[in-house]
């Protein structure tokens, strides 16, 4: 695809440093960046809260099996879909980083205002998981390979492979054993038990209830590899969906004539 004469003229004008055109375009960049940050935060945060939900809300749901398996799969969806337009339409390998950062901002706003100040839950119970390293690795692999297949294998896989290692430094202190009212539990269990969630009893926790029998107790490792495999497929699927949606084009705006404007003629091309 090549530029039209008008587009070439525009590109020439905005490529002149410090020109009015360049300044206008830069201001436009900032407006879009701010709007995009809010939009991605809202979309990715609600997607993550509805799907990862309790696994991310509570320290005593962050187990070695379901949390480690499911969270990366949920994480990779929107960044993979956004990777196509950002990388292929703009040459920006930042989809995962933008999504991860927006999610972290949204989560902390929610944890501080909703969980802590409004509902009195301590931060030790409700801290969100670390998601950025895996999503950043996804961007970096994509940029280095510039190939969607390799990006799926290495980038998609990295979202899962980095998840448990990124979180273990903050989770480990909560997995230290404690004997509380004569029962062996860990610190996370005690925190979850002590700070009452009236409608979330112990049995509702969707956590590992027994080790994966034939893997020598290595739940985290097995869960991580399985999750990475699924993430590779998900990355590719959602990258394709992003590609499809980005290339849909537009349809003529029939309403323009109602407000006295000339009808669109060629937007569907």
């Amino acid at each position: 695809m090549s530029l039209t004469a008008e587009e070439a003229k525009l590109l020439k004008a905005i490529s002149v440093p410090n020109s009015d055109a360049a300044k206008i375009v830069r201001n436009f960049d900032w407006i879009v960046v701010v709007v995009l940050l809010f939009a991605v935060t809202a979309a990715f945060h609600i997607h993550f809260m509805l799907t990862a939900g309790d696994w991310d809300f509570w320290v005593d749901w962050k187990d070695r099996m379901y949390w480690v398996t499911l969270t990366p799969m949920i994480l990779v969806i929107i960044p993979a879909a956004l990777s196509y337009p950002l990388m292929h339409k703009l040459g920006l390998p930042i989809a995962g980083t933008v999504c991860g950062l927006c999610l972290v901002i949204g989560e902390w706003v929610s944890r501080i205002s909703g969980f802590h100040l409004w509902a009195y839950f301590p931060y030790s119970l409700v801290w969100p998981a670390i998601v950025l390293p895996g999503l950043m690795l996804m961007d970096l692999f994509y940029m280095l390979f510039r190939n969607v297949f390799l990006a799926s294998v290495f980038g998609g896989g990295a979202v899962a492979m980095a998840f448990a290692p990124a979180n273990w430094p903050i989770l480990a202190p909560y997995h230290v054993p404690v004997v509380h009212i004569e029962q062996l539990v860990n610190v996370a269990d005690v925190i979850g038990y002590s700070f009452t969630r009236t409608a979330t009893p112990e049995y509702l926790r969707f956590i590992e209830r027994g080790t994966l029998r034939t893997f020598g107790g290595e739940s985290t490792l097995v869960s991580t590899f399985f999750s990475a495999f699924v993430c590779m497929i998900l990355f590719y699927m959602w990258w394709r969906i992003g590609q499809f949606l980005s290339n849909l084009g537009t349809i003529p705006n029939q309403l323009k004539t109602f407000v006295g404007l000339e009808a669109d003629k060629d937007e569907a091309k």
Partner: protein
Amino acid sequence: MTRLYIKVVMMLVLFSVAGLALAHGERNQEPFLRMKTLHWYDIKWSIENDSTVQVNEEVTMSGKVHFFSRWPEQINMPDTVFLANATPGPVFVRVGTWLNDVPMIQSTGVEVGRVYDFKVVLKARIPGRHHVHPMFNVESAGGLVGPGIWMNIAGDANDFLYGVETRTGIVIEDLETYGVENVVKWHAFWAILAVLWLAWWVRRPLLINRFLWVKDNNWSALITRTDMMVGGILLVFIITVLIVANQITEKTYPRTVPLQGGKVEVQYVPNPEEGLVEVKNHTSEYYLPGRTITIDATITNNTGKVIQIGEFMSSNLRFVNKKLPIAMAGVDEGYPAELVPNKGLILSDDSPIQPGESRRLRMEATDVAWETERLSSLLNDPDSSYGALIFFFDEEGNRYTSEIYGQILPTFFDK
């Protein structure tokens, strides 16, 4: 602007007429869940109703809970239950819970038709006036709450301290803040790294320029060798940080255990006196204009002793036979007054029931509580039946409990 004013006024009107929602919505629960599942009795609180405790002070709730034999078919049997407290969130910290003296951090299974002793110890955390109940979460049924009282917490929430000592010797002084600094530190580290990576790209023209360059077939020129080099360094840096951080963590916390998800076994304590008095329901009516449930039943005394009816109890409502002093003595002064109807239990025949005797009589339980507790809505249930416990007392003060169950026939108006 006028519309805005109207909206504000309407909002203020709404706030002024709306009642405060202070309790836990227990009245909203279907009557069958409250009448035919758990029956709580002998409930004791370590403090009086509406009295005040200081932040960090402990309070105890204890008593008995009976799991009804005719457990509703539409919910799971109580094979997975969790003893808890119904409070407005973590305003109290749950220090310990015991069922028949077995610690109940985990869930357990119970048998229907059995009675269990429970105890819940709480520690005051957030100042305010709170409604506090004992509660069982039952899988598929949700939270089933016992009678609640008001507790006031005074003091400063910042003074609250709740700690534990780990099995590895770490003394955690405050569970609220334990590990939080580390969490924030790591989140900040990764966020800063992400911001730096974004800044690397955002410092250059972002949208229109790049879009046009891509359209002009210059996509590959948008990512420079420097970008690739910086990206490669960042990739290696991230992987290195992950490896090193995990190695340090393993050394710092060599002994960890996964989240504990086992189930606890609780044996019921056999109660030889239970069921010695047989109660057979013939007809039960709810007289809507008078808020009265009338039960026509035959009572057979197999205890070998002379007994009298002391109390009819369902859904935490206690209709006590006021003519029987020992039954009245069972109602503590601090027990929530709204759950002990004034008129009590009226019997068609008050005389003692002799050993071996079968007597047919009528019991009347009248109170507006049938409406205010929203129990009369059981008439709208597909299975409009009730369940209750009846307490009998012999002359020596021994208590016998029996279940009663039957369909409710409505009487909507005076004939």
